[in-house]
């Protein structure tokens, strides 16, 4: 056991997996000499050398496109996109190729690829450094999307992502990088993909969240008998766990920081509205970012869901 923050836990996961499996390589901007702008890849260059820890030129198409080529060749690349706001120029490579090669080649070629990227707001960053557009990636068949909510989950989840035979978008909540420290086992363990985690049991309402919003949510639970679900894998998400909980509580509040419209909350709500409608006692409430362009730091706190808004959402459904 070591007491680590999420950055250290991710760094440990990478180091351990690279020692176990020489197919694992790391590439991206500033991941080598600098150890990544958040230090997630710190020390890897010295340990594994420049052909395995590649400081690439400033090219997101090149990073994801080349990582895809490596994956199909048989490696397990872990590519870093420095911030989620800069992933958009690479979605073509991800959507048109990484997500489809298995289908296109009818299984002859597969793509075991992880794209890591800092994600989300709450750190008073520059423009484009606070994106949370997970829903865009959750819409694409062939892609998996995961978000850890704690250091120990981060470590085990990254191992599962690296070992998964599909392209996985691994979103790292910037706000959590150094916020929490916890004991993280140094032994090898994994956190499974496609399984949600019930953070606390409860009877009156099911609250679903992930990443840094999971923490906000926990801060808002006082006085409620709420069942809280940490979704962890966003695509494909764990319908079973969600539906079972909803069928029990009959009330749902979904929390995410992305803008409401077409956010992942919509899919969760729709899934519930299709498969658990008859168990519902109240409307399904989404507490989310507003449908606006993500603001700069001075307005950031007005944009993000806060404890008060989350509590209000819960109180609303509890009125029914």
């Amino acid at each position: 056991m070591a007491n680590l923050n999420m950055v250290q836990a991710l760094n440990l996961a990478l180091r351990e997996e690279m020692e176990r499996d020489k197919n694992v390589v790391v590439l991206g901007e500033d991941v080598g000499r600098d150890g990544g702008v958040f230090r997630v890849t710190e020390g890897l260059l010295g340990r594994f050398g420049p052909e395995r820890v590649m400081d690439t030129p400033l090219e997101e198409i090149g990073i994801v496109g080349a990582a895809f080529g490596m994956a199909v060749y048989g490696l397990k690349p872990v590519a870093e996109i420095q911030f989620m706001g800069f992933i958009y120029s690479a979605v073509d490579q991800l959507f048109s190729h990484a997500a489809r090669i298995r289908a296109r080649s009818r299984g002859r070629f597969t793509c075991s690829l992880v794209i890591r990227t800092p994600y989300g707001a709450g750190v008073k960053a520059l423009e484009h450094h606070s994106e949370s557009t997970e829903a865009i990636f959750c819409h694409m068949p062939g892609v998996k999307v995961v978000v850890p909510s704690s250091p120990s989950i981060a470590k085990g989840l990254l191992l599962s992502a690296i070992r998964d035979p599909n392209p996985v978008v691994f979103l790292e909540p910037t706000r959590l990088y150094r916020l929490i420290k916890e004991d993280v086992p140094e032994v090898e363990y994994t956190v499974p993909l496609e399984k949600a985690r019930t953070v606390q049991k409860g009877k009156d309402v099911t609250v679903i969240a992930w990443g840094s919003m999971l923490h906000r949510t926990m801060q808002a639970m006082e006085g409620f008998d709420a069942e809280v679900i940490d979704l962890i894998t966003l695509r494909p998400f764990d319908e079973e766990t969600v539906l079972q909980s909803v069928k029990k509580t009959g009330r749902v509040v979904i929390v995410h920081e992305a803008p409401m419209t077409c956010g992942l909350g919509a899919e969760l709500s729709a899934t519930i509205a299709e498969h658990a409608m008859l168990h519902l006692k109240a409307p399904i409430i989404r507490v989310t970012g507003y449908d606006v362009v993500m603001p700069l730091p001075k307005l950031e706190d007005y944009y993000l869901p806060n404890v008060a808004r989350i509590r209000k959402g819960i109180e609303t459904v509890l009125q029914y």
Partner: protein
Amino acid sequence: MPERIVESFQVRRLDILDEKGNAEAALTPAFTEEEMKRMYELLVLSRTFDQRALNLQREGRLGTYPSFLGQEASQVGSALAVEKSDWLFPSFRECGVYVAMGYPMHLLFQYWGGDERGMRIPDGMNVFPLSIPVGTQIPHAVGAAAAAKYRGDRVAAVVYFGDGGSSKGDFHEGLNMAGSFRLPVVFICENNQWAISVPRERQTAAKTIAQRAYAYGFEGIQVDGNDVFAVYKATRDALQKAKGGGGPTLIECFTYRMADHTTSDDASRYRPKEEIETWKAKDPVLRLRLYMEKKGLWTEAYQKEVEARAKAAVDEAQKKAETTAPPDPRDMFTYTYGSLTQRQTRQMKDF
């Protein structure tokens, strides 16, 4: 020195076999009689395949198809220079490359008939499924080359794209990364003078595509793309250099798209007939034939025999493709992820 020259370049062009079938002896690769014939027969076979595909499309037995008529030398010549261990990344117009690599032709018919199984590459063959989004396959070759280099495999990656493809950001980022890491990649641009209706001169103000290599710190060369010897030599030399640690090379095959862009296109809307006429004279197959004739390697009888064998092979491939059972709808689900998701399992019950 207030004004000085800090860098300078020269872009070479290679021609070996001319339109009359005369070859520059000093530069002609030393082909055995077999090799020469194999080359010629693959040119004929690929063209036979191409013509058949066009006919089948007209009869509504294939979907939209992009003919590579006129580009046989660029495709066969380069493919023959490749070793079995090398990796190829063709674009949508490279059926000639697949044929030259010995890819089962019935699979090509299946693919163009709208069946994914046609791009289920046979095991042991390092060819990629063709890429339709123009230029986007370029970084894939760069990644494969980086993987090979990391593993210490003596392998190069060869990627094909068109003059239009050289305008995509993927081209830039791919070539820049290959240069920066000095990777074993051979970039083959089949400059066929057109990107659908956009002529080469309007695709870019650069005089050649080859010169773009110098923007990435490695060599680019233009070759006569209708000259199978020149294409072969340039590719072979580039592969040797790549595997010797010399880094990437950009080869511009200067050729011409003799057919419409695809079977859904009508080139007469945007390009002059005369242009096609002038290129007819440069036909890549005819050229090698004239050369072999001079060397006593070509006769009418041989031609008939070659054509007959090509026709037979294509007939058989077509038959095999057309008698293959249709794909199972459940394949849509099976091949999206490594294993079915909860939701897919439910959806699949529809079948």
